């Protein structure tokens, strides 16, 4: 690729143009959060005022979002990994059908899923008003990503042989699962977790319907600030989002690549 770009100035130019086209909105959005007055541009001077405003108004959404995303990862590891095993080893045709069904919430608009949840459980007040309600929505949406990734890993011929080898050596199901299968599928579990975390942090569709004024997440707060406050505050909010999410994603990616080195085959 590198040599292609060097050989062709047209390709290089095209690459730069496309990259600028994609990056510019992000840069603009961030800088306008630092400007005194968006409509007058950078000439109006720079300030951290908007950032402070965001933090004082919406600071709690940051912790809420991270906590929900982490709980979502934990829930996915518990339910998703075991479910993936059951699906991967099932010989029944129903399991294929079940796996498709599990993917449905990704295709169906989040609003519809959320509405269904509210219809079914909306009357349970404590549940409806807690973060658990939002978490359930996130779990439903993210579960197929974990299950599919990990089930594909469990279905690999190599892992089936490892499981059989461990069985011939006397390991019962629980021992096989934890001493052999989970370590062997760890790269898949981690990459699934990373995906789940990312999806949960940015999830808006479902959360918009499921949240209450006391159970807001980052994206919901962002929408609220765009709708009800100055554009500078909304932009500053975007910046907060970047500052919070990027280091977390880098950290998780780093952990995943470490595990891949140790457990990858």
């Amino acid at each position, binding site marked *: 690729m590198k040599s292609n770009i060097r050989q062709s100035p047209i390709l290089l130019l095209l690459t730069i143009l496309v990259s600028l086209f994609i990056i510019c909105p992000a840069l603009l959005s961030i800088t306008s959060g630092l400007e005194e007055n968006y409509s007058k541009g950078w000439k109006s001077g720079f300030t951290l005022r908007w950032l402070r405003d965001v933090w004082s108004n919406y600071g709690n959404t940051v912790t809420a979002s991270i906590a929900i995303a982490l709980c979502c990862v934990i829930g996915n590891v518990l339910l998703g990994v075991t479910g993936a095993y059951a699906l991967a080893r099932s010989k029944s045709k129903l399991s294929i059908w079940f796996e498709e069904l599990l993917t449905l919430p990704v295709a169906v608009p989040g609003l519809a899923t959320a509405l269904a949840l509210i219809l079914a459980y909306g009357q349970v007040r404590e549940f409806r008003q807690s973060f658990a309600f939002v978490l359930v929505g996130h779990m439903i949406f993210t579960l197929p990503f974990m299950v599919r990734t990990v089930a594909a890993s469990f279905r690999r011929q190599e892992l089936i*042989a490892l499981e059989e*080898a461990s069985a011939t050596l*006397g390991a019962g199901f629980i021992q096989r699962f934890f*001493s052999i299968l989970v370590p*062997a599928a760890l790269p898949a579990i981690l990459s699934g977790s990373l995906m789940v975390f990312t999806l949960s942090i940015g999830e808006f569709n479902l959360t918009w319907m499921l949240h209450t004024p006391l159970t807001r997440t980052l994206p919901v707060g962002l929408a609220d600030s765009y709708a009800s406050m100055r554009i500078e505050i909304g932009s500053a909010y975007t910046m907060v989002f970047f500052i919070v999410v990027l280091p977390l994603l880098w950290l998780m990616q780093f952990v995943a690549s470490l595990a891949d080195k*140790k*457990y990858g*085959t």
Partner: protein
Amino acid sequence: MELERTAVDIHQCEKTFLDGTKALQPTNLRIEPGEVVALLGPSGCGKTTLLRIIAGLEKSDGDGSVWFGSDNVTRLPVERRGIGMVFQHYALFPQMSVASNIGYGLKIRGASEQEIKRTVGELVDLVRLNGLEHRKPKELSGGQRQRVALARAIAVRPKVLLLDEPLTALDAKLKESLRDELADLLRRLNITAIHVTHDQHEAMSIADRLVVMLAGKVVQVGTAEDLYRSPKHPFVASFLGRINTLKVIRDSRGQTGVCIGGIWIPCFASVNKDSEVMLRPEDISLSVVDSLDSPTKIAHRVFLGDRVHLRVHTEDAGDLLVDAARDCPFQTGDSVKVHVAAEALMSFGDY
């Protein structure tokens, strides 16, 4: 290392897969204590299915049962059968060191640290992996991996050792040396072992007895020599070594026999006209012929170092494979005379 010697009895085991393929016809087989048996056949013959039924990784359909000594193990799950198994691609646990791989079965059984260490040490010596104890499987060569897999399987002192194509993943040269090493190790361990392979040389050099299988059925059981010298089925004859197939004809006096290069060879056994007899390439000898217009000629010659493989064209018996000694003087195009002893013809009657 002293291991238990157990007989294995397979009684009416059969298997039909979900998609309807009959992988194994009802099969009976007895393996004596301490015997090394090879299940030999082309792919899809049911040898792996039979091995997996013995291991407990597959269940026999119907009333099939598997016995280890006097214990009926049919209903025991694989982890409680007390077997050791070497897998085709070894299935070593990638995140564990060589020592942890070998010690895994003992650890599962709750053996003490001390005992695990002692047994692992003993096995590392036995399969010559000294100095590699802390390596990970991916840092080992193919031959070393195979030895770890073997050590791991025998560490649990299995009643029966099962080997599923244990040398297939290795290159030809290594295969040959590990083959003899494996044969030697199995004799020293004195363990009942069942070895699945599609390679007849591997089976012949490792096993005491060969079980030749075809299309889900056991075709013949016997020592390598028995099977080679007196096969009961044309498939056994052709699978163990190279073979010539000849059509039986009837002469003017009504006697059955074959005609090779103008020479009549009578068949002693009762065979019908139009049936076939077989002839090993090394049972054909060649001599010089005076007339240059003899229709029997060398069509092809391959020098293999210790032997020479020839293809001889005859007018009446078609092309014949002939195995000659290294110093065979005949070249491609030479006219020759063919000699075959009547006893060398192998006939099969009704199989």
